[in-house]
């Protein structure tokens, strides 16, 4: 049986299993969820091992007719790009389950519903990256909003309903624009060789479009992805959603769902509309740079730890987008690796922040103080996660961030230079909360917060391991990523700029 399909089926079956467990056996339900997600993670890792990184074509492909008269297939397959993201998703999910062991309490509905939603979401997360049929991708892209919507609105904190609605409406709006573009593609494909949604076939279609059409269709896709990723100025839904959701939800939201945006930019915007991509590159690079600096400043100004993390993500997504549209191998590989690393460093930050908030009963930075004395392990976890977020050399995100910067510099030096100022701001937006929350005298209300327990340590340990290991030895992922990015750029007809000086000589 096809590896990807199996990976997608497992969580669904798991959710059915959970559905039959009586609601009052919460522990059983949690264990089941954990077991299933772990199983999926294992399958994911196996897929990674069986993946032939030399081959740039889609692998583990499977295609089944779905709606033949519209030329729609259930078609899945992975290349280096999607494999890395799927790997990230399936690794993060069990961690989220374990870390947020008690998140389901205090929700509007039972733990049962919570974990069913999580598992359904996992299936969709895998599918959205694995889909090689644009229609299938769109369906999952839209459908996965629903579980997240209920996860935020049903189990979140604060003004969760409003946040959930804002998130949903924003995303739906983008989705509908994309739908318009997809219809456009569909019609054009119909006029040129029969209706199809096969990404490979559709990537030929740009030859049959007027540049205006191509630009419009491109925008339809790009705006949808820019909302997801979130790119300035379409980011305002994120802080609310991230702050209101449970830590676990926010991890999946920032770590995985938002990656669909940047993933889509590569997979669809570039592949389907190469000329339009070139046309819009200057604008997009500008927006990306703005996001980097803007997000960093807002993070510095943030008073709520969760919102702060959300804003840092806006900055990071700026980096990713910039790397993508720099159109250099370093930029592309860097961005892809960045997606993976950001998944883990944000996960670490959010998980720990969630623990801090749930212990203290508040996520206001001002309410914390001197945690390093009280809860050293938790403080350290937060600190390391923060260091990874500010891309400290030796930690994973440094490799990707530096690749993005170098890759951008060779083609767009100005953008890269401005973006680099982001690393100074990063130092500020991480160290300010570190000082306020972890350092200084232990402030009232924090004296006897409990430190991490075994479960929490077990949950956070692998994240830390990945962050550090990939910092020193990113090769395992880069080997998978490089051929794909090289291939994509090759198809786009881009070649890396040669060293200017030695080129002359």
């Amino acid at each position, binding site marked *: 049986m096809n590896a990807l399909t199996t990976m997608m089926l497992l969580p669904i079956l798991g959710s059915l299993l959970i559905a039959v467990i009586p609601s009052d056996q919460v522990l059983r339900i949690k264990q089941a969820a954990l077991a299933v997600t772990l199983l999926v993670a294992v399958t994911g890792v196996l897929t990674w091992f069986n993946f032939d990184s030399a081959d740039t074509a889609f692998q583990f492909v499977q295609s089944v007719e*779905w709606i033949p*008269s519209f030329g729609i297939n259930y078609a899945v397959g992975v290349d280096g790009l999607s494999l890395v993201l799927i790997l990230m998703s399936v690794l993060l999910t069990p961690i989220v389950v374990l870390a947020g062991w008690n998140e389901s309490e205090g929700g509007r509905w039972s733990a049962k519903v919570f974990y069913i939603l999580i598992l359904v979401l996992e299936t969709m997360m895998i599918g959205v990256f694995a889909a090689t049929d644009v229609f299938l991708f769109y369906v999952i892209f839209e459908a996965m909003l629903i579980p997240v919507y209920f996860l935020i609105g049903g189990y979140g904190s604060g003004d969760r309903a409003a946040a959930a609605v804002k998130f949903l409406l924003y995303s739906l709006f983008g989705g*509908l624009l994309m739908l318009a573009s997809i219809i456009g593609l569909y019609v054009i494909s119909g006029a040129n060789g029969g209706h199809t949604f096969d990404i490979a076939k559709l990537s030929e279609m740009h030859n049959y479009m007027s540049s205006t059409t191509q630009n419009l269709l491109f925008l339809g896709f790009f705006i949808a992805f820019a909302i997801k990723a979130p790119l300035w100025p379409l980011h305002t839904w994120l802080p609310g959603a991230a702050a209101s959701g449970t830590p676990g939800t926010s991890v999946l939201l920032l770590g995985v769902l938002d990656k669909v945006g940047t993933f889509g930019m590569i997979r669809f915007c570039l592949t389907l509309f190469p000329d339009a991509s070139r046309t819009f590159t200057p604008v997009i690079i500008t927006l990306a740079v703005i996001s980097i600096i803007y997000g960093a400043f807002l993070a510095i100004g943030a008073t709520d730890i969760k919102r702060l993390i959300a804003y840092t993500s806006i900055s990071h997504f700026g980096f990713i987008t910039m790397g993508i549209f720099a159109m250099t191998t370093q930029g592309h590989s860097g961005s892809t690796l960045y997606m993976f690393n950001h998944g883990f460093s944000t996960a670490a930050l959010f998980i720990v922040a969630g623990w801090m908030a749930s212990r203290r009963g508040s996520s206001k930075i001002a309410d914390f103080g001197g945690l390093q004395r009280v809860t050293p392990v938790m403080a350290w976890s937060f600190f390391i996660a923060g260091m990874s977020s500010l891309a400290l050399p030796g930690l994973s995100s440094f490799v990707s961030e530096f690749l993005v910067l170098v890759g951008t510099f060779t083609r767009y030096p100005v953008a890269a230079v401005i973006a680099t100022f982001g690393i100074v701001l990063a130092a500020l937006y991480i160290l300010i909360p570190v000082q306020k929350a972890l350092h200084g005298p232990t402030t009232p209300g924090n004296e006897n917060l409990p430190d991490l327990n075994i479960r929490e340590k077990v949950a956070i340990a692998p994240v830390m391991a990945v962050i550090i290991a990939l910092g020193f030895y990113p090769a395992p992922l880069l080997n998978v990523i490089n051929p794909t990015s090289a291939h994509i750029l090759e198809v786009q007809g881009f070649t890396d700029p040669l060293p200017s000086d030695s080129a002359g000589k």
Partner: protein
Amino acid sequence: MEFIAPSLNYAQLAPMLIVLAGALIGVLIEAFAPRASRFSSQLFITLFALVASLAALFQVRNQSSVDAAMGSVAFDGAGVLFQASILVIAILAIFLIADQENFTALAASVPGSDEEREAVQADLRVTEVFPLTLFAIAGMLLFPVASDLITLFVALEMLSLPLYLMAGLSRRRRLMSQEAALKYFLLGAFASAFFLLGIAYLYGYSGSITLSGIQESVVGGAGNDVFLLLGVAFISVGLLFKVGAVPFHAWSPDVYQGAPTAITGFMAAATKVAAFGAILRIFYVSFANAEWQWRPAMVIIAIITMVFGSVVAITQRDVKRMLAYSSIAHAGFLLAGVIALSKSGLEASIFYLFAYGVATVGAFGIVTLVRDSSGEVGDLNRWSGLGKRSPLLASTFALFLLAFAGIPLTSGFIGKFSIFSAAYESGSTSILIAGVLSSAIAAFFYIRVIVLMFFKDSVEDGTSVIIPSALTTITITVSAAVTLILGIYPAPLIDFIATTATFIR
């Protein structure tokens, strides 16, 4: 002049004749059967008639002929599909209607009078509603297959007149119900006057009253274009009134709200199918070659209708009114199928009509279940917290709403996709864009209801969900199932439509 005995193809007319027969028997029952046995016998007769008619239709599903009744009825694939949809929707609706709680005890009695009270105590029932429904259904079956202007007019009145009466039969808030009946009747008659004048001018233009005859003269270009113009315009008024397109929509919110919910559901779903069937036939068969004359106007009307319906629906506080405005918006979407003026447009419209009709019946079915001591609760604010009290019902309603909003994995999405792609394929980009934007607006109020039901705490004001009768349960379950199945695996139906749907001239 000698008189030619009419030759009728009874097999092809059977579906309609059976329903009519059922109606007549119903009348006889009203006249002679003892009160006690009326309800059961009526219900039986009605269901029997409908099922039998469906069976009869199935027998002749592959036939097609222009002279089923001396050229007054065109029997073809499209006709079969329209009739089948109407019958299915009708059967579902009958189950709702069978729940007599919705209907007044004695229609003739003055609201609040002793007469009424006695009638209620005597537990009288307006079983007349069954034959009336059957008459209406007969009219609806005839409307989309009528192929000359007389039949068209007769069918129109035949489906309208019973509906006028049924609108006035509500058990509670009878003044409103009667007002609904009055408005519906006066405006309906007013509109049909325009319709008739349109017929007159078309006759004047072509000298023929058959659609094919008109088409010939349109092709031939003989005759006075002024008459054609007036004819098209006036006939459109009549038809657009029935589907509730702006600016001929004004009746529908009031009538939808005033009429007994079961009837509203029936009328909203079935009438739309019948009326759109007729519109499609007339415009595809007769006016196709004159598109340059009416199409731009139709495009404008479609756009206005979508936008108006969606925008006004946002501000609605009553669930039935909200659904009314949403149905206006959907009328706009459906007009896109008319404008497409292509086979794919026809197929898309048929699929959309069926999917929308089923979902609508289901949705109104749920509305009948939310009640307090004084009957149904229309006020949306009092629906808040429904998800807590009866999750199943709330989820089902949410499913229907998502289908209306066109979220993937529901029938609504497939419908929306196919109809918009058909419209865009035939070159009307404006429709596509307007459709996408108004869908975005529409999403807002559908989601608002979901938020109310799931994320708001319930108000203890006696609002409760009654245990649905078996029949109602069937209706809702079936509708939900169909909505979901058509969303996940629509291929069979789409293929069937694709192979069947054709208009003969």
